Protein backbone atom coordinates (compact mmCIF):
# COMPACT_ATOMS: atom_id res chain seq x y z
CA UNK A 1 0.00 0.00 0.00
CA UNK A 2 1.16 3.53 -0.74
CA UNK A 3 2.12 5.77 2.12
CA UNK A 4 -0.73 8.02 3.22
CA UNK A 5 -0.80 11.58 1.91
CA UNK A 6 -2.94 12.90 4.71
CA UNK A 7 -3.02 11.74 8.31
CA UNK A 8 -4.96 12.98 11.31
CA UNK A 9 -3.78 11.95 14.76
CA UNK A 10 -6.15 12.27 17.70
CA UNK A 11 -7.62 15.36 16.09
CA UNK A 12 -9.84 17.15 18.61
CA UNK A 13 -11.57 20.49 18.88
CA UNK A 14 -13.65 21.84 21.74
CA UNK A 15 -15.96 24.81 21.66
CA UNK A 16 -16.44 25.69 25.29
CA UNK A 17 -17.59 22.44 26.83
CA UNK A 18 -18.72 20.92 23.56
CA UNK A 19 -16.37 18.48 21.83
CA UNK A 20 -17.16 18.88 18.15
CA UNK A 21 -14.49 16.53 16.86
CA UNK A 22 -13.20 13.99 19.32
CA UNK A 23 -9.84 12.31 18.87
CA UNK A 24 -10.23 11.32 15.24
CA UNK A 25 -7.25 9.39 13.85
CA UNK A 26 -7.36 8.49 10.23
CA UNK A 27 -5.03 8.06 7.24
CA UNK A 28 -5.98 8.87 3.66
CA UNK A 29 -4.11 7.43 0.71
CA UNK A 30 -3.53 8.58 -2.86
CA UNK A 31 -5.81 6.94 -5.36
CA UNK A 32 -8.51 6.52 -2.79
CA UNK A 33 -11.85 8.30 -2.52
CA UNK A 34 -13.17 8.38 1.02
CA UNK A 35 -16.73 9.41 1.70
CA UNK A 36 -17.44 10.82 5.11
CA UNK A 37 -20.98 10.27 6.28
CA UNK A 38 -22.81 10.98 9.47
CA UNK A 39 -25.93 12.75 10.64
CA UNK A 40 -26.13 16.53 10.72
CA UNK A 41 -24.07 17.92 13.54
CA UNK A 42 -21.80 14.88 13.57
CA UNK A 43 -18.75 17.07 13.00
CA UNK A 44 -18.05 16.42 9.30
CA UNK A 45 -17.62 20.03 8.25
CA UNK A 46 -15.70 20.79 11.43
CA UNK A 47 -13.39 17.89 10.63
CA UNK A 48 -12.81 19.42 7.19
CA UNK A 49 -12.19 22.83 8.71
CA UNK A 50 -9.54 21.33 10.98
CA UNK A 51 -7.75 19.75 8.03
CA UNK A 52 -7.90 22.77 5.73
CA UNK A 53 -7.15 25.29 8.47
CA UNK A 54 -10.33 27.35 8.88
CA UNK A 55 -10.24 26.06 12.46
CA UNK A 56 -7.25 25.17 14.60
CA UNK A 57 -7.32 21.96 16.59
CA UNK A 58 -7.47 22.04 20.39
CA UNK A 59 -5.23 18.98 20.37
CA UNK A 60 -3.97 16.36 17.95
CA UNK A 61 -2.08 16.72 14.67
CA UNK A 62 -2.63 16.93 10.94
CA UNK A 63 0.14 15.62 8.69
CA UNK A 64 0.48 16.10 4.96
CA UNK A 65 3.01 13.68 3.40
CA UNK A 66 4.58 13.34 6.81
CA UNK A 67 4.94 17.11 7.41
CA UNK A 68 2.99 18.53 10.29
CA UNK A 69 0.56 21.27 9.16
CA UNK A 70 -1.57 21.47 12.31
CA UNK A 71 -0.87 25.09 13.19
CA UNK A 72 -0.63 26.55 9.69
CA UNK A 73 -2.95 29.09 8.11
CA UNK A 74 -5.37 27.96 5.40
CA UNK A 75 -3.21 29.57 2.72
CA UNK A 76 -0.10 27.74 3.90
CA UNK A 77 -2.00 24.46 3.89
CA UNK A 78 -3.16 25.19 0.36
CA UNK A 79 0.50 25.49 -0.60
CA UNK A 80 1.09 22.10 0.98
CA UNK A 81 -1.42 20.71 -1.48
CA UNK A 82 -4.52 20.52 0.67
CA UNK A 83 -7.43 22.04 -1.20
CA UNK A 84 -11.07 22.21 -0.39
CA UNK A 85 -14.41 23.29 -1.79
CA UNK A 86 -17.12 24.67 0.43
CA UNK A 87 -20.60 23.54 1.31
CA UNK A 88 -22.13 26.97 0.83
CA UNK A 89 -21.26 28.77 -2.34
CA UNK A 90 -18.16 30.74 -1.59
CA UNK A 91 -16.90 32.54 -4.70
CA UNK A 92 -15.68 35.98 -5.72
CA UNK A 93 -19.12 37.22 -6.72
CA UNK A 94 -18.29 40.35 -8.72
CA UNK A 95 -15.42 38.78 -10.66
CA UNK A 96 -16.04 36.83 -13.83
CA UNK A 97 -15.92 33.07 -13.96
CA UNK A 98 -12.61 33.20 -15.80
CA UNK A 99 -11.16 35.61 -13.25
CA UNK A 100 -12.32 33.35 -10.44
CA UNK A 101 -10.55 30.35 -11.91
CA UNK A 102 -7.48 32.31 -12.90
CA UNK A 103 -7.10 33.42 -9.29
CA UNK A 104 -6.91 29.79 -8.22
CA UNK A 105 -4.45 28.92 -10.99
CA UNK A 106 -2.38 31.92 -10.05
CA UNK A 107 -2.35 31.00 -6.37
CA UNK A 108 -0.95 27.62 -7.35
CA UNK A 109 1.65 29.17 -9.66
CA UNK A 110 2.86 31.56 -6.97
CA UNK A 111 2.53 34.58 -9.28
CA UNK A 112 0.33 36.47 -6.83
CA UNK A 113 3.14 38.83 -5.88
CA UNK A 114 4.03 39.83 -9.45
CA UNK A 115 2.99 43.42 -9.76
CA UNK A 116 4.80 44.84 -12.74
CA UNK A 117 3.38 42.80 -15.58
CA UNK A 118 -0.25 42.83 -16.66
CA UNK A 119 -2.23 39.67 -16.08
CA UNK A 120 -2.61 39.26 -19.82
CA UNK A 121 1.16 38.80 -20.00
CA UNK A 122 0.89 35.56 -18.08
CA UNK A 123 -0.33 33.44 -20.96
CA UNK A 124 0.08 30.15 -19.16
CA UNK A 125 -2.27 31.31 -16.39
CA UNK A 126 -5.03 32.11 -18.83
CA UNK A 127 -4.40 28.92 -20.78
CA UNK A 128 -4.68 26.80 -17.65
CA UNK A 129 -7.73 28.69 -16.49
CA UNK A 130 -9.35 28.06 -19.85
CA UNK A 131 -8.48 24.42 -19.56
CA UNK A 132 -10.42 24.18 -16.31
CA UNK A 133 -13.23 26.21 -17.80
CA UNK A 134 -13.59 23.60 -20.48
CA UNK A 135 -13.16 20.71 -18.10
CA UNK A 136 -16.04 22.01 -16.03
CA UNK A 137 -18.05 23.04 -19.09
CA UNK A 138 -18.25 26.65 -18.01
CA UNK A 139 -16.66 28.17 -21.14
CA UNK A 140 -19.90 29.69 -22.35
CA UNK A 141 -20.25 31.77 -19.20
CA UNK A 142 -16.55 32.64 -18.86
CA UNK A 143 -17.14 36.39 -18.90
CA UNK A 144 -20.17 36.47 -16.66
CA UNK A 145 -19.84 37.66 -13.07
CA UNK A 146 -19.95 34.66 -10.77
CA UNK A 147 -22.90 36.08 -8.84
CA UNK A 148 -25.07 36.06 -11.94
CA UNK A 149 -24.71 32.32 -12.59
CA UNK A 150 -27.49 29.89 -11.79
CA UNK A 151 -26.95 27.86 -8.65
CA UNK A 152 -25.84 24.72 -10.46
CA UNK A 153 -23.15 26.57 -12.37
CA UNK A 154 -21.97 28.20 -9.17
CA UNK A 155 -21.49 24.77 -7.66
CA UNK A 156 -19.51 23.77 -10.74
CA UNK A 157 -17.39 26.88 -10.42
CA UNK A 158 -16.78 25.94 -6.80
CA UNK A 159 -15.40 22.61 -8.02
CA UNK A 160 -13.46 24.33 -10.81
CA UNK A 161 -11.72 26.55 -8.27
CA UNK A 162 -10.62 23.49 -6.34
CA UNK A 163 -9.41 21.71 -9.48
CA UNK A 164 -7.50 24.80 -10.58
CA UNK A 165 -5.61 24.77 -7.29
CA UNK A 166 -4.28 21.36 -8.39
CA UNK A 167 -3.99 20.03 -4.86
CA UNK A 168 -2.89 16.53 -3.87
CA UNK A 169 -5.75 16.24 -1.43
CA UNK A 170 -9.21 17.25 -2.67
CA UNK A 171 -11.87 17.90 -0.09
CA UNK A 172 -15.47 18.27 -1.23
CA UNK A 173 -18.10 19.32 1.26
CA UNK A 174 -21.47 18.30 -0.12
CA UNK A 175 -20.66 19.38 -3.66
CA UNK A 176 -24.20 18.72 -4.85
CA UNK A 177 -25.97 20.41 -1.93
CA UNK A 178 -29.00 22.31 -3.07
CA UNK A 179 -28.70 20.98 -6.61
CA UNK A 180 -31.61 19.19 -8.13
CA UNK A 181 -30.94 15.64 -9.20
CA UNK A 182 -30.84 16.59 -12.89
CA UNK A 183 -27.86 18.87 -12.38
CA UNK A 184 -25.87 16.85 -9.91
CA UNK A 185 -24.33 14.40 -12.44
CA UNK A 186 -22.14 17.11 -13.99
CA UNK A 187 -20.40 17.72 -10.71
CA UNK A 188 -20.16 14.02 -9.95
CA UNK A 189 -18.52 13.41 -13.34
CA UNK A 190 -15.88 15.93 -12.40
CA UNK A 191 -15.20 14.18 -9.14
CA UNK A 192 -15.00 10.86 -10.92
CA UNK A 193 -12.41 12.36 -13.27
CA UNK A 194 -10.30 13.49 -10.34
CA UNK A 195 -10.62 10.10 -8.76
CA UNK A 196 -9.29 8.52 -11.93
CA UNK A 197 -5.92 10.15 -11.28
CA UNK A 198 -4.32 7.71 -8.85
CA UNK A 199 -1.93 10.26 -7.40
CA UNK A 200 -4.79 12.21 -5.86
CA UNK A 201 -6.47 11.72 -2.53
CA UNK A 202 -10.15 12.63 -2.38
CA UNK A 203 -12.32 13.26 0.67
CA UNK A 204 -16.01 13.75 0.15
CA UNK A 205 -18.80 14.64 2.51
CA UNK A 206 -21.98 13.46 0.86
CA UNK A 207 -25.50 12.49 1.79
CA UNK A 208 -26.90 11.09 -1.39
CA UNK A 209 -26.53 7.37 -1.20
CA UNK A 210 -26.43 6.77 -4.92
CA UNK A 211 -23.44 9.08 -5.05
CA UNK A 212 -21.76 7.28 -2.23
CA UNK A 213 -22.33 3.94 -3.88
CA UNK A 214 -21.02 5.10 -7.23
CA UNK A 215 -17.86 6.80 -6.03
CA UNK A 216 -16.70 5.56 -2.65
CA UNK A 217 -13.65 3.36 -2.21
CA UNK A 218 -14.05 3.66 1.50
CA UNK A 219 -16.54 5.12 3.93
CA UNK A 220 -15.95 6.58 7.33
CA UNK A 221 -18.81 7.36 9.66
CA UNK A 222 -18.66 10.24 12.06
CA UNK A 223 -21.09 10.45 14.90
CA UNK A 224 -21.09 13.04 17.70
CA UNK A 225 -17.59 14.01 16.63
CA UNK A 226 -16.22 10.50 16.95
CA UNK A 227 -15.07 8.05 14.33
CA UNK A 228 -17.74 5.38 14.52
CA UNK A 229 -16.87 3.14 11.60
CA UNK A 230 -14.30 2.97 8.84
CA UNK A 231 -14.14 0.53 5.99
CA UNK A 232 -15.27 -0.91 2.72
CA UNK A 233 -18.50 0.63 1.31
CA UNK A 234 -20.56 -2.52 1.07
CA UNK A 235 -19.51 -3.56 4.52
CA UNK A 236 -20.27 -0.18 6.03
CA UNK A 237 -23.54 0.29 4.22
CA UNK A 238 -24.86 -3.00 5.42
CA UNK A 239 -23.55 -2.65 8.93
CA UNK A 240 -25.96 -2.48 11.78
CA UNK A 241 -24.31 0.41 13.53
CA UNK A 242 -24.58 2.75 10.56
CA UNK A 243 -28.19 1.88 9.99
CA UNK A 244 -28.85 2.63 13.63
CA UNK A 245 -27.18 6.00 13.44
CA UNK A 246 -29.15 6.90 10.38
CA UNK A 247 -32.45 5.68 11.58
CA UNK A 248 -32.08 7.29 14.96
CA UNK A 249 -32.01 4.22 17.10
CA UNK A 250 -28.36 4.32 18.02
CA UNK A 251 -27.31 5.96 21.23
CA UNK A 252 -26.75 9.63 20.46
CA UNK A 253 -28.39 11.70 17.82
CA UNK A 254 -31.02 10.15 15.73
CA UNK A 255 -31.07 11.34 12.21
CA UNK A 256 -32.30 10.45 8.81
CA UNK A 257 -29.50 12.13 7.16
CA UNK A 258 -30.63 12.17 3.61
CA UNK A 259 -33.21 14.84 4.32
Amino acid at each position, binding site marked *: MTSPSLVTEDLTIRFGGHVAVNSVSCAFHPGELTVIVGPNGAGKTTFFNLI*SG*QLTATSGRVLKDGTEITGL*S*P*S*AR*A*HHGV*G*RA*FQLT*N*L*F*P*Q*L*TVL*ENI*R*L*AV*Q*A*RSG*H*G*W*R*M*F*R*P*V*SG*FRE*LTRKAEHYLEATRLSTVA*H*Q*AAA*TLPHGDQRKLEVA*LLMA*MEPDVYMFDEPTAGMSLDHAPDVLDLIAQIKADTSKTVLLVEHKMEVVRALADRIIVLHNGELLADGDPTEIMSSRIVRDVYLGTAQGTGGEDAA
Partner: protein
Amino acid sequence: MITSDTRHTTGTLVIKSVVALIAALLLFAPFLFQDVRSLEVAARICIFIVLVASFDLLIGYTGIVSFAHTMFFGFGAYGAAILLKQMGPGWTPVLLGALAGVAVSLVFAVAIGLLSLRVKAIFFAMITLAAASVVLVLASQLSQITGGEDGIIYKSPDLFKTATKLLTDADGKVVRLWDVKLNGKLAAYYFVFITSLILFLAMLRFVGSPFGTVLKAIRENEARAEAIGYRVVAYRTAVFCLSATIASLAGTVYAVWLKYTGPDTALSFSIMIDILLMVVIGGMGTMWGAVIGAVLLILAQYYLRDLMGAASEALTGVPLLPELLAPDRWLFWLGIIFILLVYFFPRGIAGTMMTGRKGA
Protein backbone atom coordinates in the same frame (compact mmCIF):
# COMPACT_ATOMS: atom_id res chain seq x y z
CA MET B 1 -20.80 47.72 -5.09
CA ILE B 2 -17.63 48.22 -6.97
CA THR B 3 -17.37 47.10 -10.51
CA SER B 4 -14.54 44.90 -11.58
CA ASP B 5 -15.25 44.64 -15.23
CA THR B 6 -14.02 47.39 -17.45
CA ARG B 7 -15.14 46.06 -20.75
CA HIS B 8 -15.49 48.47 -23.59
CA THR B 9 -18.80 50.13 -23.13
CA THR B 10 -19.52 53.61 -24.36
CA GLY B 11 -19.16 54.87 -20.83
CA THR B 12 -15.70 53.37 -20.57
CA LEU B 13 -14.68 55.06 -23.78
CA VAL B 14 -16.01 58.41 -22.58
CA ILE B 15 -14.17 58.14 -19.29
CA LYS B 16 -10.97 57.10 -20.97
CA SER B 17 -11.14 59.94 -23.46
CA VAL B 18 -11.83 62.42 -20.67
CA VAL B 19 -8.78 61.13 -18.84
CA ALA B 20 -6.71 61.38 -22.02
CA LEU B 21 -7.92 64.95 -22.48
CA ILE B 22 -6.98 65.80 -18.90
CA ALA B 23 -3.54 64.29 -19.46
CA ALA B 24 -3.09 66.39 -22.60
CA LEU B 25 -4.22 69.56 -20.82
CA LEU B 26 -1.84 68.90 -17.97
CA LEU B 27 0.99 68.18 -20.38
CA PHE B 28 0.55 71.52 -22.13
CA ALA B 29 -0.70 73.44 -19.10
CA PRO B 30 2.18 75.94 -18.93
CA PHE B 31 1.51 76.92 -22.54
CA LEU B 32 -2.27 76.92 -22.33
CA PHE B 33 -2.77 78.77 -19.05
CA GLN B 34 -0.10 81.33 -18.62
CA ASP B 35 -0.84 82.80 -15.22
CA VAL B 36 0.85 81.74 -12.03
CA ARG B 37 -2.30 80.57 -10.33
CA SER B 38 -3.28 78.21 -13.13
CA LEU B 39 0.09 76.53 -13.05
CA GLU B 40 -0.30 76.17 -9.31
CA VAL B 41 -3.64 74.46 -9.88
CA ALA B 42 -2.21 72.17 -12.57
CA ALA B 43 0.65 71.04 -10.33
CA ARG B 44 -1.70 70.42 -7.45
CA ILE B 45 -3.91 68.36 -9.72
CA CYS B 46 -0.96 66.20 -10.77
CA ILE B 47 0.04 65.53 -7.17
CA PHE B 48 -3.47 64.81 -6.00
CA ILE B 49 -4.16 62.42 -8.86
CA VAL B 50 -1.29 60.33 -7.55
CA LEU B 51 -2.32 60.73 -3.95
CA VAL B 52 -5.94 59.84 -4.61
CA ALA B 53 -5.05 56.93 -6.87
CA SER B 54 -2.76 55.51 -4.21
CA PHE B 55 -5.63 55.81 -1.73
CA ASP B 56 -7.87 54.04 -4.23
CA LEU B 57 -5.49 51.08 -4.13
CA LEU B 58 -6.63 50.68 -0.53
CA ILE B 59 -10.24 51.68 -0.44
CA GLY B 60 -11.37 50.76 -3.94
CA TYR B 61 -9.25 47.76 -4.79
CA THR B 62 -8.77 46.10 -1.42
CA GLY B 63 -11.66 47.44 0.63
CA ILE B 64 -9.45 48.87 3.38
CA VAL B 65 -10.52 52.21 4.88
CA SER B 66 -7.55 54.13 6.19
CA PHE B 67 -7.44 57.65 7.56
CA ALA B 68 -3.68 57.72 7.69
CA HIS B 69 -3.06 58.54 4.07
CA THR B 70 -2.14 62.20 4.66
CA MET B 71 0.22 61.02 7.36
CA PHE B 72 2.27 59.19 4.73
CA PHE B 73 1.99 62.15 2.37
CA GLY B 74 3.29 64.29 5.22
CA PHE B 75 6.22 62.00 5.95
CA GLY B 76 7.41 62.41 2.37
CA ALA B 77 6.87 66.16 2.38
CA TYR B 78 8.55 66.74 5.73
CA GLY B 79 11.41 64.43 4.80
CA ALA B 80 12.32 66.60 1.83
CA ALA B 81 11.49 69.86 3.61
CA ILE B 82 13.60 69.19 6.68
CA LEU B 83 16.60 68.09 4.65
CA LEU B 84 16.29 70.94 2.15
CA LYS B 85 16.22 73.33 5.08
CA GLN B 86 19.17 71.72 6.86
CA MET B 87 21.37 70.94 3.86
CA GLY B 88 20.38 73.78 1.57
CA PRO B 89 19.02 73.45 -1.95
CA GLY B 90 20.23 70.50 -4.00
CA TRP B 91 19.28 67.10 -5.27
CA THR B 92 20.87 65.12 -2.46
CA PRO B 93 18.44 66.40 0.21
CA VAL B 94 15.52 65.74 -2.14
CA LEU B 95 16.61 62.16 -2.73
CA LEU B 96 17.51 61.54 0.89
CA GLY B 97 14.28 63.18 1.97
CA ALA B 98 12.28 60.96 -0.35
CA LEU B 99 14.07 57.90 0.98
CA ALA B 100 13.65 58.95 4.60
CA GLY B 101 9.95 59.68 4.02
CA VAL B 102 9.43 56.27 2.44
CA ALA B 103 11.39 54.55 5.20
CA VAL B 104 9.36 56.16 7.99
CA SER B 105 6.14 55.49 6.10
CA LEU B 106 7.03 51.84 5.73
CA VAL B 107 7.81 51.47 9.41
CA PHE B 108 4.45 52.97 10.33
CA ALA B 109 2.56 51.04 7.65
CA VAL B 110 4.02 47.71 8.71
CA ALA B 111 3.38 48.42 12.37
CA ILE B 112 -0.21 49.55 11.83
CA GLY B 113 -0.83 46.77 9.33
CA LEU B 114 0.40 43.96 11.51
CA LEU B 115 -1.35 45.36 14.55
CA SER B 116 -4.75 45.93 13.10
CA LEU B 117 -5.30 44.62 9.58
CA ARG B 118 -6.51 41.38 11.11
CA VAL B 119 -9.40 43.08 12.83
CA LYS B 120 -12.61 44.53 11.50
CA ALA B 121 -12.57 47.27 8.87
CA ILE B 122 -14.11 49.72 11.30
CA PHE B 123 -11.41 49.13 13.86
CA PHE B 124 -8.77 49.73 11.26
CA ALA B 125 -10.38 53.01 10.25
CA MET B 126 -10.45 54.17 13.87
CA ILE B 127 -6.89 53.14 14.57
CA THR B 128 -5.47 54.86 11.50
CA LEU B 129 -7.43 57.97 12.41
CA ALA B 130 -5.93 57.93 15.88
CA ALA B 131 -2.40 57.35 14.57
CA ALA B 132 -2.67 60.14 12.02
CA SER B 133 -3.89 62.65 14.57
CA VAL B 134 -1.09 61.77 16.98
CA VAL B 135 1.46 62.38 14.20
CA LEU B 136 -0.22 65.69 13.40
CA VAL B 137 0.03 66.80 17.02
CA LEU B 138 3.63 65.63 17.25
CA ALA B 139 4.50 67.56 14.11
CA SER B 140 3.18 70.79 15.57
CA GLN B 141 4.83 70.14 18.94
CA LEU B 142 8.30 69.23 17.71
CA SER B 143 8.75 72.74 16.38
CA GLN B 144 12.56 72.72 16.44
CA ILE B 145 12.48 70.11 13.67
CA THR B 146 9.20 70.70 11.91
CA GLY B 147 8.67 74.40 12.37
CA GLY B 148 5.52 73.67 14.34
CA GLU B 149 2.35 75.31 13.14
CA ASP B 150 4.29 77.70 10.93
CA GLY B 151 5.90 74.96 8.92
CA ILE B 152 9.18 75.21 7.03
CA ILE B 153 10.16 77.48 4.18
CA TYR B 154 13.15 76.42 2.10
CA LYS B 155 14.63 76.63 -1.39
CA SER B 156 14.18 73.96 -4.00
CA PRO B 157 17.09 72.75 -6.17
CA ASP B 158 18.63 75.50 -8.32
CA LEU B 159 17.23 74.08 -11.53
CA PHE B 160 13.72 75.03 -10.38
CA LYS B 161 14.45 78.67 -9.50
CA THR B 162 12.35 81.05 -11.54
CA ALA B 163 15.55 82.88 -12.45
CA THR B 164 17.10 79.77 -13.98
CA LYS B 165 17.30 79.95 -17.72
CA LEU B 166 16.85 76.60 -19.38
CA LEU B 167 17.79 77.90 -22.80
CA THR B 168 19.25 81.26 -23.66
CA ASP B 169 19.28 83.04 -26.97
CA ALA B 170 22.21 84.93 -28.45
CA ASP B 171 21.65 87.88 -26.07
CA GLY B 172 21.73 85.62 -23.02
CA LYS B 173 18.00 86.10 -22.54
CA VAL B 174 15.73 83.19 -21.74
CA VAL B 175 14.21 81.60 -24.83
CA ARG B 176 10.46 81.87 -25.19
CA LEU B 177 8.39 79.16 -26.77
CA TRP B 178 4.88 80.26 -27.75
CA ASP B 179 5.45 83.22 -25.51
CA VAL B 180 6.31 81.05 -22.52
CA LYS B 181 9.67 81.54 -20.83
CA LEU B 182 11.70 78.36 -20.70
CA ASN B 183 12.77 78.99 -17.12
CA GLY B 184 13.12 77.07 -13.88
CA LYS B 185 9.45 77.37 -13.07
CA LEU B 186 8.68 75.44 -16.22
CA ALA B 187 11.24 72.81 -15.29
CA ALA B 188 9.69 72.50 -11.86
CA TYR B 189 6.26 71.97 -13.37
CA TYR B 190 7.51 69.25 -15.67
CA PHE B 191 9.31 67.62 -12.78
CA VAL B 192 5.95 67.41 -11.02
CA PHE B 193 4.14 66.29 -14.14
CA ILE B 194 6.59 63.57 -15.11
CA THR B 195 7.02 62.08 -11.65
CA SER B 196 3.25 62.05 -11.21
CA LEU B 197 2.79 60.42 -14.59
CA ILE B 198 5.34 57.74 -13.78
CA LEU B 199 3.77 57.00 -10.40
CA PHE B 200 0.29 56.88 -11.90
CA LEU B 201 1.34 54.55 -14.71
CA ALA B 202 3.06 52.34 -12.16
CA MET B 203 -0.18 52.08 -10.23
CA LEU B 204 -2.09 51.25 -13.40
CA ARG B 205 0.39 48.42 -13.82
CA PHE B 206 -0.14 47.21 -10.28
CA VAL B 207 -3.88 46.97 -10.57
CA GLY B 208 -3.71 45.08 -13.85
CA SER B 209 -1.09 42.66 -12.59
CA PRO B 210 -1.64 39.34 -10.85
CA PHE B 211 -1.07 41.21 -7.59
CA GLY B 212 -3.97 43.51 -8.42
CA THR B 213 -6.30 40.60 -9.06
CA VAL B 214 -5.43 39.18 -5.65
CA LEU B 215 -6.41 42.50 -4.08
CA LYS B 216 -9.79 42.36 -5.76
CA ALA B 217 -10.20 38.78 -4.63
CA ILE B 218 -9.54 39.82 -1.04
CA ARG B 219 -12.07 42.63 -1.35
CA GLU B 220 -14.66 40.21 -2.71
CA ASN B 221 -14.19 37.28 -0.39
CA GLU B 222 -11.39 37.32 2.09
CA ALA B 223 -11.91 33.83 3.49
CA ARG B 224 -11.95 32.19 0.08
CA ALA B 225 -8.84 34.09 -1.01
CA GLU B 226 -7.09 32.65 2.02
CA ALA B 227 -8.44 29.18 1.29
CA ILE B 228 -7.11 29.07 -2.26
CA GLY B 229 -3.67 29.96 -0.99
CA TYR B 230 -3.24 33.72 -0.65
CA ARG B 231 -1.95 35.01 2.68
CA VAL B 232 -4.50 37.74 3.14
CA VAL B 233 -2.71 39.56 5.96
CA ALA B 234 0.51 39.65 3.96
CA TYR B 235 -1.23 41.03 0.88
CA ARG B 236 -3.11 43.62 2.86
CA THR B 237 -0.01 44.76 4.64
CA ALA B 238 1.81 44.85 1.30
CA VAL B 239 -0.78 47.01 -0.41
CA PHE B 240 -0.92 49.26 2.62
CA CYS B 241 2.87 49.68 2.40
CA LEU B 242 2.77 50.20 -1.36
CA SER B 243 0.10 52.83 -1.09
CA ALA B 244 1.98 54.52 1.77
CA THR B 245 5.16 54.59 -0.30
CA ILE B 246 3.47 56.24 -3.24
CA ALA B 247 1.74 58.77 -1.00
CA SER B 248 5.06 59.57 0.60
CA LEU B 249 6.75 60.09 -2.78
CA ALA B 250 3.90 62.36 -3.84
CA GLY B 251 4.53 64.30 -0.65
CA THR B 252 8.19 64.77 -1.50
CA VAL B 253 7.36 66.03 -4.99
CA TYR B 254 4.79 68.44 -3.59
CA ALA B 255 7.28 69.74 -1.02
CA VAL B 256 9.81 70.42 -3.78
CA TRP B 257 7.19 72.23 -5.84
CA LEU B 258 5.73 74.36 -3.03
CA LYS B 259 9.00 75.26 -1.31
CA TYR B 260 6.97 75.30 1.86
CA THR B 261 5.78 72.45 4.08
CA GLY B 262 3.47 72.86 7.03
CA PRO B 263 0.64 71.00 8.75
CA ASP B 264 -1.94 72.62 6.50
CA THR B 265 -0.31 71.62 3.23
CA ALA B 266 0.92 68.18 4.16
CA LEU B 267 -0.62 66.68 7.28
CA SER B 268 -3.95 68.16 8.23
CA PHE B 269 -7.12 66.16 8.44
CA SER B 270 -8.74 68.39 5.85
CA ILE B 271 -6.40 66.94 3.22
CA MET B 272 -7.58 63.49 4.24
CA ILE B 273 -11.16 64.69 3.77
CA ASP B 274 -10.24 66.05 0.34
CA ILE B 275 -8.77 62.71 -0.66
CA LEU B 276 -11.86 60.88 0.51
CA LEU B 277 -14.14 63.26 -1.35
CA MET B 278 -12.08 62.95 -4.51
CA VAL B 279 -11.97 59.17 -4.52
CA VAL B 280 -15.66 58.79 -3.80
CA ILE B 281 -16.81 61.46 -6.23
CA GLY B 282 -14.49 60.18 -8.94
CA GLY B 283 -15.37 56.54 -8.33
CA MET B 284 -13.67 53.91 -6.23
CA GLY B 285 -11.83 50.98 -7.68
CA THR B 286 -11.22 52.35 -11.15
CA MET B 287 -8.02 54.48 -11.07
CA TRP B 288 -9.65 56.71 -13.71
CA GLY B 289 -11.98 57.87 -10.96
CA ALA B 290 -9.00 59.26 -9.07
CA VAL B 291 -8.13 61.46 -12.04
CA ILE B 292 -11.65 62.77 -12.47
CA GLY B 293 -12.25 63.29 -8.76
CA ALA B 294 -8.99 65.13 -8.22
CA VAL B 295 -9.52 67.43 -11.21
CA LEU B 296 -13.10 68.28 -10.31
CA LEU B 297 -12.46 68.98 -6.66
CA ILE B 298 -9.36 71.05 -7.14
CA LEU B 299 -11.01 73.14 -9.81
CA ALA B 300 -13.91 73.61 -7.44
CA GLN B 301 -11.56 74.49 -4.60
CA TYR B 302 -9.94 77.23 -6.64
CA TYR B 303 -12.71 78.57 -8.82
CA LEU B 304 -16.02 77.65 -7.22
CA ARG B 305 -15.00 79.60 -4.15
CA ASP B 306 -14.69 82.79 -6.17
CA LEU B 307 -18.17 82.21 -7.46
CA MET B 308 -19.50 81.61 -3.97
CA GLY B 309 -17.84 84.78 -2.77
CA ALA B 310 -19.70 86.75 -5.40
CA ALA B 311 -22.98 85.06 -4.52
CA SER B 312 -22.43 85.68 -0.83
CA GLU B 313 -21.89 89.38 -1.39
CA ALA B 314 -24.95 89.58 -3.57
CA LEU B 315 -27.05 88.14 -0.77
CA THR B 316 -25.86 90.46 2.00
CA GLY B 317 -28.72 91.20 4.32
CA VAL B 318 -30.42 87.82 4.01
CA PRO B 319 -29.95 85.88 7.27
CA LEU B 320 -27.49 82.96 7.37
CA LEU B 321 -27.40 82.46 3.60
CA PRO B 322 -24.43 84.77 3.03
CA GLU B 323 -22.66 82.91 5.81
CA LEU B 324 -23.33 79.55 4.16
CA LEU B 325 -22.33 80.87 0.76
CA ALA B 326 -19.12 82.44 2.01
CA PRO B 327 -16.13 81.04 0.13
CA ASP B 328 -14.85 79.42 3.31
CA ARG B 329 -18.06 77.46 3.58
CA TRP B 330 -17.63 75.65 0.32
CA LEU B 331 -16.93 72.45 2.23
CA PHE B 332 -20.47 72.65 3.57
CA TRP B 333 -21.90 72.23 0.10
CA LEU B 334 -19.32 69.68 -0.86
CA GLY B 335 -20.24 67.68 2.21
CA ILE B 336 -23.87 67.65 1.16
CA ILE B 337 -23.02 66.68 -2.39
CA PHE B 338 -20.78 63.96 -1.03
CA ILE B 339 -23.54 62.49 1.13
CA LEU B 340 -25.98 62.51 -1.79
CA LEU B 341 -23.40 60.86 -3.99
CA VAL B 342 -22.72 58.06 -1.54
CA TYR B 343 -26.47 57.45 -1.35
CA PHE B 344 -27.35 57.58 -4.98
CA PHE B 345 -24.15 56.95 -6.92
CA PRO B 346 -21.86 54.96 -4.65
CA ARG B 347 -19.69 54.04 -7.63
CA GLY B 348 -18.89 57.69 -8.26
CA ILE B 349 -18.67 59.30 -11.66
CA ALA B 350 -16.28 56.88 -13.33
CA GLY B 351 -17.84 53.80 -11.75
CA THR B 352 -21.36 54.80 -12.71
CA MET B 353 -20.43 55.59 -16.30
CA MET B 354 -18.25 52.56 -16.82
CA THR B 355 -20.67 49.98 -15.48
CA GLY B 356 -21.78 48.02 -18.47
CA ARG B 357 -25.21 46.47 -18.67
CA LYS B 358 -25.47 43.78 -16.09
CA GLY B 359 -23.82 40.55 -17.10
CA ALA B 360 -22.67 42.02 -20.39
